[in-house]
């Protein structure tokens, strides 16, 4: 089976339990088991070749430009790990079927488990370190899901997050490490990297790469000081603890260290970091484990300790130690998984994991007791079980290790750790199974069905067999794996009896010391409890909480919702960068003559500046400031006119009129005065900033105006081609509807959108509770008695056709003289607005049947369709055509498609302004406000006469 498929199978298979759970729990677990078995068989097919020393590969180019490829390889080390993962996986799947209760969503469980399995197999089969990283992080994620499997338990949720944070952090640092390593080696393929030991160790980046990668390994394999997450991961269901957190996932860090051993080990840095951390972890884990009363916590810390042991062996950097490490990986997986499952059985049957509540179970649960006894003795390193073999090898290696010139340190600490290891292992037997039978178990215990005890029994059988016949069972696999780790041919011949070696003496000391310690457990516990100990979870939680609160403080403090502040930051930042850009460039001399200052412009300048300053001074009075803004607008229009830009002047003034009217309508709903909110200091700050910004802007414009174009401007082309190519003598209009008609098309769309948004807001507001407030609104001041004065009504009626005529005139002359659809649209709108003003919204709306949405839509459509017309001539969008027509009795006149486009502009502008007006006036509607008559006093009106008669 292709390696690719072996890694992919569990992922694909993860779908089955999720779906088949509907067919029952057996279907889910059987399908999961079948998938795993299939992958295992596929793997074992390659075993003979791998054991012969061949390497099976399977390559697929995924992202070659980055160096991230789906390359897999299977060598001895990979085979060892993959077999462990899939083999123990099968046992766990069986065990979990009987362990989980009816209420637990088993489909989910098996799906997560398979995802984890796939990720784990992926790690050990990857030949590409970036691919390995992917699987690496996937194990963190699936472990997160599995620890948090019992969602209702806070320990599960917190443990899951803690595990994800710690292992995730390690994974992230490993990303950096791997990127550096791949860069040094020139490839991310392990097979290449492993051949560049000298190159890598000579690189100045070796140390950072090593440390970053080790951070990943240490967090994953729960090495000191990152060990604290593992005990909290025990909130997961026991099958998960047995599988992920003792047998497989936590060994991923060890796997990686073993994988990289040929290139990374052998330096002092490696020895002192890996060896020392492993040693500390081993001792610390063993000591803590002895004082835990929770069965799973005891096993968790013992796992930490054994992981430390293996790390230490890898850290020694010698071949013998590496072989011992590989061998202990197998042994630990067998006895520890068995013990976890055993603890699960005890928990399942007695409903407690507290050692203090247990004892004397050997009579009630003989099978469980037998299994636990063998596995625990193996863990303690008692012959003839497999744990003894590898522990001897460890002690042997430790005995020959010299730490910074101190020869006794490592052996002494190793014995110390082994002593505690013996003590806690035996405690597991003594305090749970031995002793007197109790009568106060939370639930009456008995041996479980074979579904629960068979899986650990298989492992315990291995424990015994490897111990008795190591050469027959373990040697081929260990040899192949150790050969892959060290890169040399390894000869591995373990035996129960080595003769009277130092290791044997050390072992004897450890066993005797351990027994003594267990006997003194009560006293030792009292000492332990009085020792000041940092509680990792408390520290971690405080850190996370602090970080969260700091983040919240920063975020809320920064984004406090004050628009003023945002604008201030924007202005300062913009001015700063603008000044930087300006000052780092070369500023040339003025090249453009300025006009002489004469009286008229000077007067206009004073009016403009004066009105602007007045707006600032009187901004608290909304109406007054609106009037003053109107003055500013007027002055701008006048200056356009003075500076020979009549089109701009016309546009500006009509926009000004419409805007002021709409704003007046809006002001109706606001208090007359704006609130006084800012403190004097703040006002000074704001004044300083805005004055600086204004001066900067003014300076920029002055600099622009006193300099000529550095190169000829495109406007010369427009001037030259306006009549010839655009058919109009008014260049501004030709630019608007022809040269840059596409811009205009966009802008009328903007206008139309703005109007329908005003409409939509009105609808939303009037459809909500706000409507009641509007209906009951009291005017700020008493209303004028004469809302619809006769004079105004009559005048606006007469003005209307004239205004429309003017609009038509402006529209038609537009192409050649100042004018055009935009201005015409505004004027036509003003003609209608006047009617609204004179006779009120209700009256005018009744007489005006055109839907404004439709007008806007038509306008944009007319413009678009005009533009598309050119397609039929094979020309691009908006290409204009014009011709001159001569009809009898009339002068020759021009017909241009641009006029049609301008009609679209006209309609869109007209519709947009009126829709906005209509929407705003709807806010003002109150019962009785609408008059059915055009004016308040009408001599022709019947009721008016009656009223007069009444007087």
């Amino acid at each position, binding site marked *: 089976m292709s390696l690719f498929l072996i890694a992919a199978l569990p992922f694909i298979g993860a779908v089955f339990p999720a779906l088949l759970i509907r067919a029952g729990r057996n279907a889910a677990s059987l399908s999961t088991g079948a998938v795993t078995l299939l992958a295992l068989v596929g793997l074992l097919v390659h075993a003979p070749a791998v054991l012969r020393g061949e390497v099976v590969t399977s390559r697929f*180019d*995924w*992202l070659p*430009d980055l160096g991230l490829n789906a390359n897999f390889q299977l060598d001895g080390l990979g085979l060892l790990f993959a077999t462990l993962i899939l083999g123990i996986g099968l046992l766990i799947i069986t065990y979990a079927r009987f362990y989980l209760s009816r209420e637990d969503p088993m489909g989910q469980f098996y799906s997560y488990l398979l995802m984890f399995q796939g990720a784990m197999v992926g790690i050990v089969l990857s030949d590409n370190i970036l691919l390995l*990283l992917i699987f690496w*992080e996937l194990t963190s994620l699936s472990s997160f899901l599995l620890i948090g499997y019992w*969602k209702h338990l806070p320990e599960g949720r917190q443990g899951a*997050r803690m595990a*994800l944070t710690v292992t995730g*952090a390690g994974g992230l640092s490993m*990303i950096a490490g791997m*990127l550096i390593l791949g860069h040094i080696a020139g490839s991310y393929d392990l097979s290449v990297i492993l051949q560049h030991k000298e190159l890598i160790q000579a690189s100045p980046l070796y140390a950072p790469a090593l440390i970053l990668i080790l951070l990943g390994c240490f967090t994953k394999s729960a090495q000191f000081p990152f060990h604290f997450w593992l005990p909290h991961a025990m909130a997961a269901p026991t099958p998960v603890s047995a599988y992920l957190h003792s047998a497989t996932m936590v060994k991923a860090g060890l796997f990686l260290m073993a994988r990289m051993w040929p290139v990374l080990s052998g330096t002092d840095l490696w020895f002192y970091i890996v060896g020392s951390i492993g040693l500390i972890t081993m001792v610390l884990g063993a000591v803590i484990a002895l004082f835990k009363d929770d069965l799973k916590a005891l096993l968790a810390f013992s796992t930490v300790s054994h992981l430390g042991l293996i790390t230490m062996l890898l850290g020694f950097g010698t071949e013998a130690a590496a072989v011992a490490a590989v061998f202990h990986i197998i042994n630990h997986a067998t006895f520890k998984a068995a013990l976890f499952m055993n603890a699960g059985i005890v928990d399942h049957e007695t409903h407690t994991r507290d050692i203090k509540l247990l004892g004397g179970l050997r009579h009630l649960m003989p099978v469980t007791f037998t299994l636990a006894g063998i596995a625990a003795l193996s863990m303690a390193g008692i012959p003839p079980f497999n744990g003894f073999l590898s522990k001897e090898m460890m002690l042997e290696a430790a005995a020959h290790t010299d730490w910074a010139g101190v020869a006794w340190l490592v052996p002494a600490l190793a014995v110390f750790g082994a002593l505690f290891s013996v003590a806690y292992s035996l405690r597991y037997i003594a305090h749970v199974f031995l002793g007197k039978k109790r009568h106060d178990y939370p639930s009456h215990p008995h041996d479980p069905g074979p579904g629960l005890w068979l899986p650990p029994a298989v492992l315990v059988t291995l424990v015994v067999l490897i111990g008795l016949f190591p050469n027959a069972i373990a040697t081929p696999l260990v040899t192949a794996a150790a050969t892959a780790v060290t890169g040399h041919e390894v000869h591995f011949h373990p035996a129960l009896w080595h003769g009277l070696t130092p290791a044997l003496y050390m072992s004897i000391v450890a066993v005797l010391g351990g027994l003594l310690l267990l006997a003194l457990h009560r006293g030792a516990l009292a000492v332990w409890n009085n020792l000041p100990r940092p509680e990792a979870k408390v520290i971690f939680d405080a850190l996370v909480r602090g*970080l*969260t609160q700091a*983040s919240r403080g920063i*975020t809320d403090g920064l984004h406090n919702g004050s*628009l003023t502040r*945002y604008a201030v*930051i*924007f202005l300062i*930042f*913009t001015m700063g*960068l*603008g000044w930087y*850009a300006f000052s780092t*460039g*070369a500023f*040339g001399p003025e090249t453009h003559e300025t006009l002489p200052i004469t009286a008229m412009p000077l007067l206009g300048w004073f009016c403009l500046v004066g009105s602007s300053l007045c707006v600032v001074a009187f901004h608290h009075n909304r109406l007054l400031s609106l009037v003053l803004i109107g003055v500013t607008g007027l002055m701008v229009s006048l200056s356009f006119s003075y500076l020979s830009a009549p089109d701009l002047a016309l546009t500006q003034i009509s926009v000004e009129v419409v805007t002021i009217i709409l704003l007046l309508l809006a002001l109706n709903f606001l208090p007359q005065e704006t609130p006084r909110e800012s403190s004097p200091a703040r006002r000074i700050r704001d004044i300083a900033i805005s004055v600086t910004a204004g001066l900067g802007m003014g300076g*920029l414009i002055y600099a*622009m105006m006193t300099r000529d*174009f*550095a*190169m000829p*401007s*495109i*406007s010369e*082309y427009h001037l030259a081609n306006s009549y010839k*190519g655009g058919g109009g003598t008014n260049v501004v209009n030709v630019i608007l509807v022809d040269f840059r*008609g596409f*811009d205009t098309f*966009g802008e009328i*769309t*903007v206008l*139309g*959108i703005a109007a*329908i*948004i005003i*409409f*939509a807001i009105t609808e939303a507001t009037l459809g909500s509770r706000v409507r009641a407030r509007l209906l009951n609104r009291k005017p700020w001041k008493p209303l004028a008695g004469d809302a619809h004065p006769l004079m105004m009504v009559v005048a606006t009626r007469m003005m209307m056709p004239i205004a429309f005529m003017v609009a038509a005139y402006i529209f038609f002359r537009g192409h050649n003289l100042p004018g055009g659809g935009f201005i015409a649209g505004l004027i036509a709108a003003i003609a209608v607005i006047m009617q609204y003003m004179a006779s009120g919204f209700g009256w005018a709306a009744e007489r005006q049947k055109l839907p404004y*949405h*439709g007008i806007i*839509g*038509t306008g*944009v*459509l007319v413009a*678009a369709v005009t533009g598309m017309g050119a397609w039929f001539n094979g*020309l*691009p969008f*908006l*290409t204009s055509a014009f011709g001159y027509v001569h009809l009898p009795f009339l002068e020759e006149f021009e017909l241009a498609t641009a006029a049609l486009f301008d009609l679209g502009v006209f309609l869109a502008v007209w519709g947009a302004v009126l829709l906005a007006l209509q929407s705003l006036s709807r806010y003002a509607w109150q019962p009785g406000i609408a008059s059915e008559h055009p004016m308040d006093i009408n001599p022709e009106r019947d009721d008016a006469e009656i009223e007069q008669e009444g007087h």
Partner: protein
Amino acid sequence: MSHLIILPIVLPALVGPFILMAIRFHSDLQRVFSIASVVLLNLIAVTLLTRTLDGSIEVYRLGDWPAPFGIVLVLDRLSAMMVLLTTVLALPVLLYAIGSGWDTRGRHFHALFQFQLMGILGAFLTGDAFNLFVFFEVLLIASYGLMIHGGGSVRLRAGVQYVVYNLIGSSLFLIALGTLYSVTGTLNMADLAVRVATLPAEDTSLIRVGAVLLLLVFAIKAAVLPLHFWLPASYANAPAPVAALFAIMTKVGAYAIIRMYTLVFGPDVPVAEGLAGDWLLPAALLTLAAGSIGILGTREIGRLVAFGAIASMGTLLIAIALFTPQATAAALYYTIHSTLTAALLFLVADLVMERRGGALSPRPVMPQNGLIAALFFAGAIAMAGMPPLSGFVGKLLVMDAARGDAWVWTIWAVILITSLITIMGLSRAGSLVFWKAHDRSVTPPETEEETDIGQPLTPELAPEPVPGLAFVAAFALLAGLVLLTVLAGPILKFTEATAAQLYAPADYIQSVLQRP
């Protein structure tokens, strides 16, 4: 003459007004036309993209005026990619809007949606700086309308901030364009490139000011710190499908930076020296930091996603600010990833908000908890840049591209540390929303909060929402992320070719300026 290039702009510009004019009272018809339009746009976008694969650049001269005097649209690899990304995003977003019934909670959703697409697509296609401004206006005003769709006082208030801040940006855009025009006398981007390259060295201050102001405008759109303030409140309070569509809006800013600062003010142009990368890189790093800190510190799921969007813009801008072909190729890949991810998470956030409210505090189990949790988990993985989704690939690409830069260690450190903060924030939020609901201690809140004033009381008679469709849309986005990961190889090949095209602008300039 092929008019296909302009169709992405003209088609929504026809459908939008048509909806207003003819079918504004028929919600179901609007849905049909809106979907048809977006499907057609997708077909057009795919066709356009295939036409750029051979490296050719197509120019469309509006009104048949020669460049630089008229307006041109330019189709190169970058614009084709961005157009396709927009339409690909628009379809699931639209389906979600229909499925969740959001489109009927206010007026004119579909018309505004079409106008929004018109603005975005126009911005990607135009080759004229002023026309870019016009399309920025179109997309701004349409986005404002969409943002406050459905009303409600919180949303309207956020909308005011959004529109005011962006109007300040628009004014700055005009000032910048004025400055550039006053020096060079042109607005066509290719022509600008030619002229800026040949400017006399003794008078560069003004063009530099113009260039940096322009960059600031785009930086506002791209939500670069400290110009990002408009984003969190407006994205968090916008209707979910709108926020999801907005995932592409920040990319418009990123696109414009890439376009202008490779074509006109490229790394080899002496006049623009030190204007872009020098401050953009630190600002991008801060953006990423602020985004991830926001993710951890937020109290509300919509805001969480909004900060996630800011963080991903940070990563994207880091890659852009390096201004090398390799980094730009990475940036383009990351653009696709970031867009789809932010959209997916906004939709998931909405699914959550509709069922239990957005507050990150324990509530009882909501309907479809498991399905939504799965979607959130996938989206969170993508956003945090964890494997196996495209965020991880994108992150690796960006980090790899930073290798040659002097800031490499800072960049790596910031990216990795913020990833951790993001993971912590997302796992916290996910655990609170999806897991803690199962805790037996969690009881329903005593009283329902008072509905916000300004929220419409009774939605008008509208077609029923189609909840299945909402999930289809979310899963479609997720499928997009999976495809992006699986096809990373070919997609990266494309973005590399795109980056190569960008850093050799002679082709572009010549295609635009040659007389037909």
